């Protein structure tokens, strides 16, 4: 199973982000990584969590607009040039990256980059061929 990201629509109003994190805390969900994209009026919060299903349900119950998005999680060495090599594997095939964000794993040796690519299958194949380690949903939630 591929990695799942939880995406949440947020109005630019004070207190909304805190509301999300409180809801997740009460549901016993641990946030692994997050990225926030915003305009003047609203933002989209993207979350990688240990329990995506629970996170989605808890947020929906709290009245948020939530979607589950399939993303690609790649483990890479945490050193200069690490991200460049991985990105290169994808763009070399002419695949378009919608967005990406990265975080460093707990042991500090590896970093994980999260890709959102429309042509997910092709991208996954390209990454594997290039020798990158694509994480499964289970592996991602264990990081």
């Amino acid at each position, binding site marked *: 199973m591929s990695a799942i990201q939880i995406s949440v629509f947020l109005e630019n109003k004070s207190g909304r982000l805190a509301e999300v994190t409180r809801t997740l805390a009460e549901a016993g969900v641990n946030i692994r990584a997050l990225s926030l*994209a915003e305009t003047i009026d609203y933002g989209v919060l993207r979350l990688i969590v240990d329990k995506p299903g629970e996170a989605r349900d808890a947020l929906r119950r709290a009245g948020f607009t939530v979607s589950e998005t399939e993303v690609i999680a790649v483990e890479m060495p945490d050193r200069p040039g690490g991200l460049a090599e991985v990105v290169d594997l994808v763009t070399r095939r002419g695949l378009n990256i919608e967005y990406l964000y990265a975080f460093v794993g707990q042991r500090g040796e590896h970093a994980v980059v999260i890709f959102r690519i429309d042509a997910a299958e092709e991208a996954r194949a390209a990454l594997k061929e290039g020798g990158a380690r694509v994480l499964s949903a289970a592996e991602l939630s264990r990081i």
Partner: protein
Amino acid sequence: MEVAALRALQSQRLRESVARVYETVPHYRAKLDAAGVKPADIRGLEDIGRLPFTTKDDLRETYPFGLFAAPMEEVVRLHASSGTTGKSTVVGYTRGDVRMWAEVIARTLAAGGTHRGDVVQNSYGYGLFTGGLGLHYGAELIGTSVIPTSGGQTRRQVQIMQDFGSTVLCCTPSYALVIAEAGREMGVDFGKLPLRVGFLGAEPWSQTMRLEIEAAAGIDALDIYGLSEIIGPGVSFECLHKAGLHVNEDHFYPEVINPDTGEPVAEGELGELVFTAFTKEALPLLRYRTRDLSVLIPGPCQCGRTLRRMEHVTGRSDDMLIIRGVNVFPSQIEEVLVGIEGTTPNYLLVVDRKPRQMDELEVQVEVSAETFSDEMAKLEALTARIRREIESVLGLTVSVRLVEPKMLARSEGKARRVMDRRDLG
């Protein structure tokens, strides 16, 4: 004209127009037959209550020309305004109607002291909207020099006002403030300009706004009222006493009714305005329900005119909004949203009038599970598409904002769709 003579004239005109529409408009014949009324039953004004009302639905059912009482060979002009369900309201004028329209506008302008030699800057939009051409012909009839600037290009408006020595301004009240503000930024001293009076209408406004315009532009700001179904601008007008709007009631007979029961209200009480355009040739509507709320003011005006006066219109008995002279129905916006999303999303229309700016319409749309995307580009594209489609339906610039579900107030039963923050008191 003496009141008794005016009433006799109105009675005669009512009889004639009822007979004519019964003869020439099948829709009216059917309506009158259904109400059990024959033209002979209408002997004068005292019988007007027996006639059925005409509503926007009648215009919609007979779209575009079905209520015309004159053959198309005699119709020399067509105007249109937006209607409730995408189809516009189409109105026609014969040569005689255009002449009569010019006369009632000439009266309107003369009541504010306009005369030959005046330079009239007409900043109402020229086009399907009745404002531009409506004012234009009346100003020409008086013999003024008309500048058909139409709306927009505000700095140029100010330049023309200075260079051509405009003495009279015709536009919406909010645009008058925009012009005044642009002039201030350009360093223009309105006190030194020959500009004297403004005929401002096509949208509701308040006494506070009048004082603001008068101070900013150094003019007498007079309210004019009208609606395209009846004629356009020129249905009623203020004189320099600014004590209500005189109805051109020799052409447009006014009644005020209780919008719920359809019964006339007592003299001096608030209700919905109803007009009978008995001298119109192309579109002589009988007892047309305007949905505008007002009061007929008892007693004569200091100016000596015997034409009765109505108060400023301050509200509607339906949910229509008038924004920069454009009629906006929430249902029009709903239709666009359904077209894009496949279902009715929750939405709220917020109308705002910031100091010295035009009215603004913001459409807040709740993001649903179906329309939500984790990609900003898609959300931005959705916003842009909603805005584009609404603008093309309304012919009005709007802003669109995506909001979280359930952030919009819901009331019991009917959702609250409109928040009007303008001060119209």
